[in-house]
């Protein structure tokens, strides 16, 4: 029996990347199931899945004492490859496909202002919190600030400017908290912030930027508003990836040295 298990383990290790596809597929499937059953879809499956990823990384760290989360366990080495910077950037760049600049121009000045304001405000707030908690170097502040933008802008920025895995993990967590708060909290604040028409939905999408959060939050508020919020939110991650490891990094570096 042990030889059969050894043989299986050997096959899994030898085909690491494929094992990772299978494993991540199962994680995502379970997460969407949990999202649907336990939260009635209010907490989107993607958020549950990313949270599960962070928890698994913690477990990996406990089991191996290493610094690469689950990827330190031999049969999950492929997870490191699938979630590495190269594949990640490839997949994230692909999300820009089909985006049309004409749309944002038609959406008007408010939408464009909201995008820039959203990126800047999240960065600044995130970087200040990072500073307050002792992450006082420009690289960590920028990366955590980027995470407060979205959980994609965070790691992309962090990798580009050479942040540690620890700080990148924090940036993912910050973005995840934002995404979850936006998807669950929006219905409660919608009335206060005047989120009841297409124009404010456009602005809301540009300010929040987290596509899953915006889609979930608007769906729970008024499904008719989803396309408006989604339209501006689509541009947010690209803008964040452009400004994060450039303008924002230089500005924060100039301030803290």
């Amino acid at each position: 029996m042990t030889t059969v298990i050894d043989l299986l383990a050997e096959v899994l290790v030898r085909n690491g990347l494929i094992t990772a596809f299978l494993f991540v597929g199962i994680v995502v499937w379970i997460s969407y199931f949990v999202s649907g059953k336990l939260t009635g879809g209010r907490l989107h499956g993607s958020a549950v899945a990313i949270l599960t990823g962070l928890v698994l990384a913690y477990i990996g760290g406990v089991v191996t004492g290493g610094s690469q989360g689950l990827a330190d366990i031999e049969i999950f080495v492929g997870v490191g490859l699938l979630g590495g910077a190269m594949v990640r950037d490839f997949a994230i760049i692909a999300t820009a496909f089909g985006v049309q600049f004409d749309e944002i121009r038609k959406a008007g000045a408010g939408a464009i202002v909201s995008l820039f304001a959203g990126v800047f405000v999240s960065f600044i707030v995130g970087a200040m919190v990072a500073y307050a908690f002792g992450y006082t170097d420009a690289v960590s502040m920028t990366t955590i600030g980027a995470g407060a933008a979205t959980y994609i802008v965070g790691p992309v920025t962090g990798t580009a400017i050479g942040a540690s895995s620890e700080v990148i993990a924090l940036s993912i967590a910050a973005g995840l908290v934002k995404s979850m708060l936006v998807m669950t909290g929006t219905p409660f604040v919608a009335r206060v912030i005047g989120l009841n028409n297409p124009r404010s939905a456009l602005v809301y999408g540009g300010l929040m930027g987290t596509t899953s959060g915006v889609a979930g939050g608007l769906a729970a508020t008024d499904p008719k508003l989803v396309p408006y919020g989604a339209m501006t939110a689509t541009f947010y991650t690209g803008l964040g990836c452009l400004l994060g490891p450039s303008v924002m990094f230089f500005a924060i570096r100039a301030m803290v040295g």
Partner: protein
Amino acid sequence: MVIYGVALLAGCMIAGIFIGELLGKLIGVQANVGGVGIAMLLLILASDYLRRHGRLNPVSRQGIIFWSSIYIPVVVAMAAKQNVIAAIKGGPAALLAGALAVVASFALVPVISRIGDGRVVRLDDGSGEDRS
């Protein structure tokens, strides 16, 4: 062919990352300056150009759409390979950074909605009160 889409995506990524590295060298920082964002920009421009000239057929598109639709699983894998143990002590920072960013952004919704509003109203009533 599907590979054409994948190759287009790859070309945009290589070009973007290369420009980012180049910018970093020029400015004198050890960073890839905006490379992924530049690559996204290139992909938007390239796919828009090809679409308008009818050069990107649905099969080729599949090569890009596949990668774009797999980004959440990739992010899950990315999360699973981080040094979360070391990050736990900074957990409150992450929570607060995310939460405060949301609060600040929520607060700006009515403010910026008003900016857009005013401008459009001004355009609509055609009173000629131009503000560029």
